[in-house]
């Protein structure tokens, strides 16, 4: 379907089901094609197969952490235009710096405002409401 193809692909990565649930709802409601991953490995699989335009990343995950996932995304040529947003409970200055150093476009500490998150995603993807 044509309409479906125009939809931006977004990958949401978090190991907490109770956080994935609202994120998935939000993205879907805002017209994204949503993919879900519950750890770093799943995230990379999804990145490789779907090449999403936006990735929302948790940092503390059981296998590969968010920083590493971000770095791998940045190494990938096909993902050069993709936006990466960290969504993390790690709120220390050093953690945030590390996130940007890994190549993130944005770092949002948890708990977050759903409105703020969506605004920022739209800003980044240039789909600010016309």
């Amino acid at each position, binding site marked *: 379907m044509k309409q479906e193809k125009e939809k931006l692909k977004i990958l949401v990565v978090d190991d907490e089901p*109770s*956080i994935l649930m609202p994120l998935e*709802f*939000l993205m879907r409601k805002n017209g994204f094609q949503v993919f879900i991953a519950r750890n770093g490995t799943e995230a990379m699989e999804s990145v490789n197969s779907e090449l999403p335009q936006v990735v929302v990343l948790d940092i503390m995950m*059981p*296998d590969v952490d968010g920083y590493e996932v971000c770095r791998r995304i940045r190494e990938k040529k096909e993902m050069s235009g993709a936006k990466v947003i960290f969504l993390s409970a*790690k709120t220390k200055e050093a953690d945030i710096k590390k996130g940007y150093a890994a190549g993130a476009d944005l770092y949002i500490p948890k*708990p977050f405002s759903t409105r703020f998150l969506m605004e920022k995603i739209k800003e980044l993807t240039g789909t600010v409401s016309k």
Partner: protein
Amino acid sequence: MNYWLVIGVSFCYLALLFGLASWAETRSAAGKSFVSNPYIYALSMAVYCTAWTYYGSVGRAATSGLEYLAIYIGPTLMAPLWWVVLRKIIRICKVQRITTIADFISSRYGKNITLGSIVTVVCVLGVIPYISIQLKAIASSLSVLTSTTMEAEAFPDTSFFIAIGLALFTIVYGTRHIEATERHEGMVTAIAFESVLKLVVFIVAGVFVTYFVFNGFDDIMAQAVQLPDFEELMTFRSEGGYGEWFWMIFLSMLAILFLPRQFQVAVVENVNEQHLNKAMWLFPLYLFVINIFVLPIALGGRLLFAPGSIDADMFVLAIPLSQGQGVLALLVYLGGFSAATSMVIVATIALSVMMSNNLVMPLMVGTPYFKTGNQDRLTRFLIYSRRLCILLVLVLAYLYYKGVAEYYSLVEVGLVSFAAVAQFAPAVIGGIFWKEGTKGGALAGIIMGSVLWFYTLVVPSMVGVSMLPTSVMSEGAFGIALLKPFELFGLQGLDYISHAMFWTMSLNTALYIGVSLLSRQTSQERNQAEVFVDIFRYSTVYESSIIWKGTAYLPDIRSLLISFLGEQRTESALQTFHRKYPAPESETGLADPKLVTYAEKLLSGVIGSSSAHIMVGSVVKEEEISIDEVLDILRESQQLISMNNELRRKSKELRLATGQLRSANERLKQLDELKDEFLSTVTHELRTPLTSIRALSEILYDNPELEREDQEHFLQTIVKESERLSRLITQVLDLERFESGKQELNIAPVQLREVVKESVEALERLIEEKGITLVVDVQQNLPPLLADRDRLIQVLVNLISNAIKFCNPEQGEITVSGYWIDGQVKVNVMDNGKGIDQESQEQIFDKFYQARNQNIRKPEGSGLGLAICKKIIVSHKGRLWVDSEPGKGAKFSFTLPVNVPVPAAKA
């Protein structure tokens, strides 16, 4: 062999010795000392091996067998102890400028003149027999070599001239310098040379007898077996034999320390204490080597000569002679001559210094003539008195030889000397290790020992030569049976040496200790006792640790020193002192008390310590000081050293403390990091449910049009996450209380069955929902536990709910069991889940441990549950652990101790 040829060779040999000594002294003056090495030192100690060894051992071996070895075993056993005993004596003598054993003893007991002179007299009496046997050996060997018979009654005979010759030689040789502390490098060189000569010649003679006269050791032994008393010679006599060996060994252990000549070479002539290290094994080695051929020569002599035809003492000379080996015989004679002369030279020098310093000088300096002046004449007087003493000693030795020694074997006479010097053992050994030993004790011990020595050893020998009636021996002195010299106070069954040693040593020691304990020390004695016993502490600050109080004028002291040391040496000695203790020249001309001590020490080296004390006393005005003062001042001077040590210790302590602080800091840092980590983990764990709650709430708020199903789902999650949040907070607080020790337990008797029942009931619904098979098996009639009931339930609920989460999802099985084992109650909670791998088994009890395997990660849970369980069980003095294998389920177990006789058990 021509008589005059042998005499000529003997004198040439003495001239050679003299030349050697002069050469060594010239070298030493040029700074190329030949003596300052441990080998020369050890060789000079071999002056122990005299004609007694050279001739007498063979004689002893030929008549009494192996017994001759005892006097070499003693010194060999003593050698390892030198580091403790001899080193201390050396240090004391260096510091105090002590030159003889008499001076040593008198110094230790307050520089007492009486004690010094008694020791001197005992030494002279004791050593003269020893010197006499050297004369005897020379005379006998000369007569054997030249085949002349000794005319016992003739005077003057050869041995008289030998004695006079040796006296003159020793006078020229030994009294050129008056200061006795000045080492005799020439003499030591000559002695070392003589030690080499006697050893080499003796071995050559031994090889000759063993391999040329006979066909080796085997041959001699094979032939000797036919001797009628062979077996007796080669075995210990069973009757009293061991006792005799013991006393002989003991005797020679003391002799090696206290014989005046051994004291001279080992202590006075010692250049460096470190030389003892090598001497400690070189000297015993020398003794061993020189004894190798004693037995072959002795047995060879017995085999070659008809019994009684040749004196066994002369076998070593007689064998080469009988084989027509003239040159070898002459060499052997020279070897014996060297063994005898070395002993005579060293012993007479030592005795003469002792006599002049302890007998003559104290008498002289006490006379008004010397007290009021004329001190400059003392020096010359001293030299002449020493020369006279040398002559006197040798004449006495000659007379003893003619009167007594001629009729006894070398060894018999020698042992009498050993026993005499052994009498110094209690006073010397006690003096350097026991501060309480007093002058009275030393005097009493030495006098008693010496009198008994005289009575049990000398008197019998006088009876033997008919100087005393034989009734003394058979009936006891004055007809009192208890006073028989060989069976004193009725003691029987010992040979005469053991008998004498037993009585002299035991009564000597007993009196020394007993009188010392009963008598009091003077301040001077106390001072010396402290310095002697603790010499290694005082030796560096000696001048300041000797107590002297009084008024002294520098000019007086200077002139006193000049009269003994001469102008030049006095000035340089005073300069040395001022360099060491710089002090402004006092305007009043008063001398520093330290200088008085220093001057006395300088004089001690020349005239002995007690005389020096009198001399110094004559020019200064000394004040009596109390023992308390002595101890105070000693303590002060000791503080100098101890302060130094203290500083060293302090800085070591500081270093240690720094290290400890650093590691404590490290630990704190680690704890801090742990705390930080904990905090950030806690906040992270708090943020997760909070994030979910906030996001879901916002969604619900922003989307009122949401379908009811979704709304309910979101709201349910919000409630669940809120519960999680509050649970987490409760647990964090719980944990904190346990960690800080603030958690109090409501200990009361608890029935395990009830607790388990209650815990299971709380989870019953969940278990049913999941279709899990639960088996509860708690032993009946368990003694009540003393525990906090609620906390115990908390643990059980936690463990069972973990089991519920992790057991097999299809066919879950959980077993809870409880029973009594090894004096405690054990509870198991077992599931049939995936199990836990080995490396995680310890870590799951850590806070916030997240199992690496995502699949067994707790779907919900704070990560604090097991940590809290562990805290609870440990605070009950129990143990919580897990047994598991991956794929075979997990069994969590805990034990709780039970106090069996609990009165309140029936609660």
